[in-house]
């Protein structure tokens, strides 16, 4: 991608951003693990076709918040969520909302690459298959190829689609997991420190991928690395001790934050 077109893309996206269309809105979101409260009345909105980075020191609740967005917290025993989170104006914690459908719309990529112990093809095909997205084999082949293309993995694996997904390198595995998430055609992709288990080169590839995915998806990414947040996101939210400290344009956040704590964290005074 050359400089020109990249600038064009940025411009188009920025224009879109000014529309201020919120994909997901979190209102007074609190999370409890048993008796312990992990998140305190967080109000955070996620804009459409934007990469939102969640930063903050360990244990600040950023991953917890991320997991409330597609209700992965449901799988943890004793976890309780209060407040309201909407996806396109639907309350995702409403009784009417189906968690399976929600997760089909809000996909997730995990901290550690977790490919299924199946072939690369089957890893990608799994989501479309359970949701019945492909009518026939040709359809499925197409979805698999498209997803791998999007994840920038196609050229690397197209000759060994039927070999085990666990045989890939760490970076490839994580891109496979992203391709797997993309294959379901979600509207939002949540990424929980997707590069923490990867080396710098693999990290660069994944970051590049996030950048490209932004055109079609709304992305929320949790990261430990400030540089990464600066590189990939347009909006950044800073968490501390279970509270949302500040949410701002990434550029502003890293140059002139509103909150002293953000300043301290970015300067490396704690965390």
């Amino acid at each position, binding site marked *: 991608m050359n400089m020109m077109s990249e600038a064009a893309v940025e411009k188009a996206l920025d224009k879109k951003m000014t*529309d*201020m*269309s*919120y994909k997901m*809105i979190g*209102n007074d979101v609190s999370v409890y693990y048993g008796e312990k409260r992990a998140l305190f009345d967080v*109000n*955070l*909105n996620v804009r459409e076709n934007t990469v939102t980075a969640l930063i903050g020191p360990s244990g600040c609740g950023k991953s917890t918040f991320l997991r409330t967005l597609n209700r992965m917290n449901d799988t943890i025993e004793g976890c309780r969520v209060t407040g309201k989170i*909407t996806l*396109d*104006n639907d309350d995702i914690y409403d009784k009417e909302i*189906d968690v*399976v*459908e929600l997760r*089909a719309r809000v996909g997730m990529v995990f901290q550690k690459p977790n490919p299924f112990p199946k072939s690369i093809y089957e890893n990608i095909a799994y989501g479309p298959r*359970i*949701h*019945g*997205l492909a009518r026939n084999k040709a359809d499925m082949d197409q979805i698999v190829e498209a997803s791998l293309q999007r994840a920038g993995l196609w050229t690397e694996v197209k000759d060994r689609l039927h070999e085990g997904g666990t045989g890939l390198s760490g970076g490839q595995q994580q891109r496979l997991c992203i391709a797997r998430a993309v294959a379901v*055609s979600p509207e939002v992709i949540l990424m929980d420190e997707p590069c923490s288990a990867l080396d710098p080169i693999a990290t660069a590839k994944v970051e590049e991928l996030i950048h490209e995915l932004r055109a079609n998806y709304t992305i929320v990414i949790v990261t430990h690395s400030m540089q990464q947040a600066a590189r990939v996101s347009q909006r950044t939210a800073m968490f501390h001790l279970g509270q*949302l400290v*500040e*949410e*701002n344009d990434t550029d502003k956040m890293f140059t002139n934050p*509103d909150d002293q704590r953000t300043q301290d964290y970015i300067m490396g005074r704690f965390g």
Partner: protein
Amino acid sequence: MTDVVSSPAGVLAKPARRDIGIKRRYAAERRFRAYGIAALSFGLLFLALLLWSVVSKGYTAFQQTMITVPVEFSEQVIDKDNERATDPQKLMTANYPIIARNAVAKALGVAESNTADLRAVNQMISNSVRSQLRDMVVANPQIIGTTQTVSLLAAGDIDSAWKGQINLDVSEDNRKVSDKQVGWMNQLAEAGALAKHFNGGIFFNGASSRPEAAGVGVALIGSFYMMLIVLVLSLPIGVAASIYLEEFAPKNRLTDLIEVNINNLAAVPSIVYGLLGLAVFVNFMGLPRSASLVGGLVLTLMTLPTIIIATRAALKAVPPSIRAAALGLGASKMQTIFHHVLPLAMPGILTGTIIGLAHALGETAPLLLIGMVAFVANYPTTPMDPSTALPVQIYMWANEAERAFVERTSGAIIILLLFLIVMNVGAILLRRRFERRW
């Protein structure tokens, strides 16, 4: 910064949702879950059925119908020529059942001339009155000529009938208790002579072909000896073997082989241990068959792998930091293990041992092969004497045809299960009490 902005999505038409078959998939989800619940309920249902079947059949075994009547120890019958001073055999061989029969007949008002009725009366009392009365007389010859009130065991069929286990509605020819005997039974009961009492005999008596006199006394002693042998041998050997394998053994082919070997031994069918015991201990070493010593040795070999596996797990659970701390203070490896690691692993080891013992207590098959299926009426005094074991006694009684034996068998099973419950609860308490999380 968190200003509330109304989403334009509310204004725009919602995009058409993809059909991802939610309804159908949730039906499958519910079905799958129902299978799980059904399977679990099936297992638990049969646990309940099994226990219910044993308890409902067996709780009556702890009661025994007795006929309490004044018994005249007639000198006429016991020793009419007054030879007991010169011939000690006289008191042993006297016709005691006649005394008992006469006593019951008198209580019922049956004429001494009516031989048919007398025979029917005789059938109502257990044959074991012979030894019961004989022991009374031998212990105290003074009672000859006197009348004593004695509780006599009712015969097995009368016992079953009185407990309502024999269907008295079928025609008289097809059951073992006649109408006349039923009438007598009621007559005695009304007079307060026939009643159910606590049956201590089932705990203390030895083998008997008469269900009313049979008990698990010998089997309990035999099982006790065997458990003692298993405990004394398998605990130290098992712990020693585990310590070596877990703490000292180098990782090489040989220890790998031992490892596979132990896991395999834990899964070898128990009957194979019986064959081993028969061939090695009985045939080759010449130890006596039916002895609880052989049974104990066989069960030891069978229990060892279980104990070793449990002990190794307990040793493994002790964190390496403890070992490092002791070694760092200059303790030798052996001291570290015996002073620190072993005491910390002890609760786990003991829990494993108790569970292994409980398993050995209920084991039957190998004991059948080494001849513990024996009719043993006397208590074994040493582990070398012929004996039987609790589960083997259950097996032998299960093969008896009489109705009263079904009740006894269930009663013996209840005793066995009680022992197992006590052991397992003990193991659980031990684990709860000393459980340590690192």
